[in-house]
């Protein structure tokens, strides 16, 4: 017991406390000064804004994928089910170089898209694509078990009471999946906000255009501007605490909302 606590403190608690201690050395004016600079604000907006948009795409596509995997049978279903985990398992640097080469102007997908006038690699769109890639398993793996466990009787009852299929899905099935969908969305969002490896290759990393907040932390560190790095890190860390907190609340709400059968 004591051993566990000591190890946890050494590896997790002390390093994180160090971060907040470093941040507390800054005066409030300095802190706001760093955050309000044009470059920092833009980087934070890119990271949070695109992560939110990517998580929204993942929410919709994740639901479609879960529906196909759980409700239908088609050739290769089990393989596609296993493939969903690849963004979890593939090292982020590998995902980064792969996505970049895929969407670069001469890449397999980049070339046809360029012909349509769409540039993906080295623009904010590239960041968005990488964030979708990294977030999709979070939604699928949170929602899938809930749809699998859903009682068939509820649907049959709705249908036998005269609801058409669309009503059954939108008024009966989807509402009972809302907590799982929200949790998946929050997890995908949190991951995309902090994502570094799979994004920096495809991003282009132009300050005030396609620079993400984690990269700005790395840049400030390499310039020995520790205070700047710390201030940005604190904002991101507080955001991830809030997301964890929200996820826990959603889980508790889901447990009280749907009585166990």
């Amino acid at each position, binding site marked *: *017991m004591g*051993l*566990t606590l000591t190890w*946890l403190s050494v*590896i*997790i*608690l002390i*390093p*994180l406390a*160090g*971060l907040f201690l470093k941040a507390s050395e800054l005066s409030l004016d300095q802190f706001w000064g760093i955050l309000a600079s044009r470059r920092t604000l833009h980087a934070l907006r890119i990271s949070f804004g695109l992560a939110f948009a990517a998580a929204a795409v993942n929410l919709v*596509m994740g639901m*479609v*994928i879960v*529906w*196909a*995997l759980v*409700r*239908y049978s088609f050739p*290769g279903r089990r393989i*596609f089910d*296993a*493939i969903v*985990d*690849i963004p979890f*398992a*593939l*090292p*982020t*640097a*590998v995902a*980064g*170089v*792969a*996505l970049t*080469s*895929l969407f670069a102007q001469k*890449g397999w*997908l980049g070339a046809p898209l360029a012909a349509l006038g769409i540039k993906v690699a080295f623009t904010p769109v590239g960041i968005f694509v990488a964030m*979708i*890639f990294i977030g999709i398993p979070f939604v699928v793996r949170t929602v899938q078990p809930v749809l699998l466990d859903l009682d068939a009787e509820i649907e*049959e009852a709705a249908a036998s009471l005269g609801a058409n*299929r669309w009503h059954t899905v939108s008024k009966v099935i989807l509402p009972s999946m809302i907590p799982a969908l929200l949790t998946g969305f929050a997890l995908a969002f*949190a991951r995309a*906000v*902090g*994502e*570094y*490896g799979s994004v920096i*290759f495809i991003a282009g990393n132009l300050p005030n255009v396609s620079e993400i907040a*984690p990269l700005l*932390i*790395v840049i400030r*560190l390499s310039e*020995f501007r520790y205070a700047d*790095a*710390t201030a940005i*890190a604190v904002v*991101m860390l507080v955001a991830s605490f809030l997301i*964890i907190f929200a996820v826990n609340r959603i889980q508790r709400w889901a447990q009280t909302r749907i009585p166990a059968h």
Partner: protein
Amino acid sequence: MSELQYSLRSARDDLRTEPRPIRIVIIAIAVIFLTVFVVLPLVVVFAQAFSKGIGAYFAALSDSEALSAIRLTLLVAAISVSLNLVFGVIAAWAIAKFDFRGKTFLISLIDLPFSVSPVISGLVFVLLFGAQGYWGPWLQAHNIHVLFAVPGIALATIFVTFPFVARALIPLMQEQGTLEEEAAISLGASGLQTFFRVTLPNIKWGVLYGVLLCNARAMGEFGAVSVVSGHIRGETNTMPLLVEILYNEYQFVSSFAIASLLAMLALITLVAKTILERHLDEGQHPRGD
């Protein structure tokens, strides 16, 4: 099955599915999305790695820088997986088998590295051990290298991979309860005997599962390691860092050759994970369930 039963059953199925065209559209969207966003990136890694032939591929892998990166990655993974294995089992044991104050706090603490940006996981160690960090000057005076050396890389990797083993074991051990341990102790077994003869055999698949995921992340970690490594060629570059360096130098075949090794690791991990999940499911639902 009688004809009546059969027609009843198909009527039941019809209530729970959509018209054929909608089914086809949904399957098509799912398959196309997964192919574009997940399958193609994986295929492109191998296509690029072998784009100049098998000879160039193996030449890239036997380069001295590549070999030193592979060695360093294996060393760091060995250190962090074994430490996290020992402490993960102890932490899960403490949480699952005992009640104490602050337990929820402890669980959130274990989960924390999952939700922190990898860059921040590296940053916290720079703030502690860096030249301008809290302990940096003392370390320098005593000529101890943590940052830009193996200890720093190992520390950052341990931080990032901390939750895997404990996370895999906590639900498993909670479900198993303490009855078997109590029985062993009341029959005269010592604490250690109980652990090695009763607890450990019960959780062996869970332990393997945690170690598997922990190892995959340890070998593939990029952001946290990138911040603390210093990118010293041939010395502090792990495989993912070398992928980045070679890619930025336009040595695409070499970069993707190393990336292909990491991709294979990911694929093997996924297959092993699927097999282990089957074992874990069997353990959780005894026959007759």
